[in-house]
């Protein structure tokens, strides 16, 4: 049976306004509301699509956070077979991708998957290096910006998006890790009653993240909302007047 592992993360929900913690170095978690990373949601959907098409066992792993159970049960309602919550993480401090990748790699190695899917990036991780780091630790190839995968024997056929609207169809030998940009079909709706049913039947395994390797970690000196810059000065009037004003502005700046 093909084994697929999906790494899914919860990220700050931008519907709520972000507040900075009194320390000035992090988001205020009391105001924070978490939501599944949209790209990870697509990764789960893609895994379920593969499962429905050619059969697979889908494991969803997510670092512990507020609301992670709901997200995992919801994945189970869509068709995920195994749910794992990575526990023992510092609630106040977001782990770096490097340390998280090490912890995940150890866990995933035991599952020995044919395919690892995760969101190509997240709103709190625009670098998107979690997938590549996990792949590297497990000695797997990694391809990002994928918008559709199907499995054929020991290879995956994937569509990769390039800037400028270009698409490439590529063949990747398994096992492999893919960074998902979009699933083939938009993530499905899962009825609340199905999620609720999963809450009473599905099991979430709690596995400790273990000691995180903090070597080479950076620290945040200051976190802040962008300060409003001075307002732009609007030049108004007829074309001649505007031209005259513009000339004097440029002169004042010593550009003329």
């Amino acid at each position: 049976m093909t084994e697929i592992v999906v790494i899914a993360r919860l990220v700050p929900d931008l519907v709520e306004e972000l507040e900075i913690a009194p320390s000035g170095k992090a988001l205020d978690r009391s105001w924070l509301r978490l939501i599944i990373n949209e790209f990870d949601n697509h990764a789960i959907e893609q895994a379920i699509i593969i499962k429905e098409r050619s059969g697979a066992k889908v494991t969803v792993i997510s670092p512990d956070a507020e609301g992670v159970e709901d997200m995992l049960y919801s994945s189970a309602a869509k068709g995920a077979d195994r749910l794992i919550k990575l526990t023992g993480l510092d609630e106040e401090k977001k782990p770096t991708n490097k340390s998280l990748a090490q912890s995940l790699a150890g866990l995933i190695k035991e599952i020995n998957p044919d395919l690892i899917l995760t969101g190509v990036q997240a709103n709190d991780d625009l670098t998107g290096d979690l997938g590549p780091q996990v792949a590297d630790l497990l000695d797997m190839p990694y391809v990002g910006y994928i918008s559709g995968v199907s499995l054929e024997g020991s290879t995956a056929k994937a569509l990769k998006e390039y800037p400028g609207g270009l698409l490439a169809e590529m063949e990747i030998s398994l096992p492999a890790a893919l960074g998902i940009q979009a699933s083939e079909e938009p993530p499905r709706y899962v009825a609340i009653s199905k999620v609720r049913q999963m809450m009473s039947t599905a099991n979430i395994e709690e596995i400790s993240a273990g000691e995180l390797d903090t070597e080479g970690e950076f620290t945040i000196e200051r976190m802040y909302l962008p300060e409003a810059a001075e307002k732009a000065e609007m030049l108004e009037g007829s074309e001649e007047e505007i031209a005259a004003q513009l000339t004097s502005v440029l002169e004042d700046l010593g550009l003329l």
Partner: protein
Amino acid sequence: MPEYVEYWGIPHQWGSPSILVYSVMFLAAGILLVRFFLKARLWWKAGRSESRWDRIPTRIWYLIKYGIIQARVLRQSYPGVMHVAIAWSFFILFLGTALATIHSHFFRFLSGSVFSFYKLALDLATILFLVGAVLAIYRRYVTKPERLTYQPQFTWTLVLLVLIVLGGITTESLRLAVEQPVNAAWSPAGWLLARGFLATGASTEVLTNLHLYVWLVHLLIVATTILTLPVGSLFHVLTGPLNIFFAELERPTGTLPPTPTTADGAPIYVSKLNQLTWKQILNGDACTECGRCQDACPAHGAGYILNPKELILGIRSLMDRVKSGQAGYDLPLLDNPGLSQEALWACTTCGACITECPVLIEHIDTIVELRRDLVIEGSIDGELQDALTNLGRYGNSFGQSPRKRAQWTEGLEQPVKDATREKVEYLWYVGDYASYYPSLAELTRKTAAVFQKAGIDFGVMFKGENNAGNDVRRVGEEGLFEMLVEKNIKAMERCDYQAIVTTDPHTYNTLLNEYPFPEKRPILHYSELLAQLIEEGRIQFSNPLNFRVTYHDPCYLGRYNGIYEQPRKVIQATGCELVEMPRTRDRALCCGAGGGRIWMDEGNVKERASESRIREAAELDKVDYFIIACPKDYTMFQDAVKTTGFEESLKVLDLIDLVDKAI
């Protein structure tokens, strides 16, 4: 003294004619019953069980009201008069035959003046029938309304009925012509015809023989009619009353049943024929194909594929396939004529079909049950999916932060109390649209200001309020509905209040009819509260408006909950002159937003229901204002006046605008 004579002019040499008559009739009736049983048996065989045997006296009253008096049929004048003329005349003629049987075998009473009245009644019934038949022929073959289906069965049935009545009157008049009894004038129609026979100069013997032949033919046609009842359009005389008798009595229209479950508690999501209840299947066979639902349906009117009549007939045609052995009971319901996903999603659950149906078919229960299966399967359009996801996550369809739910209060002179912290008399359930929809914020503030001016002690729940779930339930997302109900009841239990008030008829409906409040407190629509405050003198108007206005009844206020008077009282109290639209009160046309339609992709639409409604209002003489009493109506009709080009001549105002202007 004239007396009823059994089998006048029928020779007795073959034995008593009653043996012939009873043999033929009992045989025909027996065959009919067997055929009916074979058909009816399948309802229970195919359908799930559902008990409809409670409250027998009410069921009998329904049978009288809707089956015999035909109150629903009479909602429309031409078809109403046409149908009752035919039906009532047949009731009288049937009763006449029954009385004659009693007279012959049990109790002789048809003599003297009683007999004369008896003859008169039957003759008048004959005339009544002929009026009905002429109306029917004219309607079916000349005016041909679109809503009627034209099948040979109708012609067949109509011809048989006309022949029965003509046969009856002819035998009657031939007897009169030969006998010329003293009470002949009590049979005006019969006597007129009799004089016609006499004018031909035919001999008594010829007339008596002719009488015999006509009588025999009459007898055979009656037998044929009975025998062919299940294939003709007259089958509804059996299924219609049955459907009426087994109508839903427990729940008001505004209460949907929860998802049904199997004996061991597993939910049943209906996608196959045998997952419907026997009553839902009976609906299919009971449909008289009158098309009143089709005419009233806002989705059909807007050009969507949904036709409530075809949807119900879709169930019938599936059953026909089962009956003919072409398919099993587990036939999928969808992707069949009348029954498609697209049709199901087009329903606004406005309840017009249910209100019109003469045989009390329950369309909406079936539609919502089928939608529940589509939701479970995830077969929903993207916009609806977003709305439901937002509702599940944020408690509102807009995907806005719950913390912003009371943002509309910003800018109010007087702050609004937080009912989750302070004791209030009225808990104002604001609802999603009034809370979040940008162009409604001003209206919501105006409502608050009017409440404040009237000295009402009220508060709102701020972020504690979630969408009440009326339309979530009607979309078929029962689990989400249950979740919202739990959250809201929990939030409301934390509040100390005497009554709930809301401007939203949808919220009003579900709170009133579906919420399992541990303690019942009054739930008011703001039109009710305003009417009450005006009556008590707590709102007084110093500036009578003198507008000529029309009022649009919201489906979930009017048709669903019977609130028609209070909004009208408020309108009139502000000094406005109210002009009614042709489709008013329980005939009001839906705006097109209900049942979750407001969250869905509009799809291909010919003429939006809201636009059709605005055109209806615009045709009224010198009406400048279109008054609404529902936040969703405000958005729907504001758009519709623009798209129809009536923006300048017809202004959409909320009830509260009038009150605010007139204070």
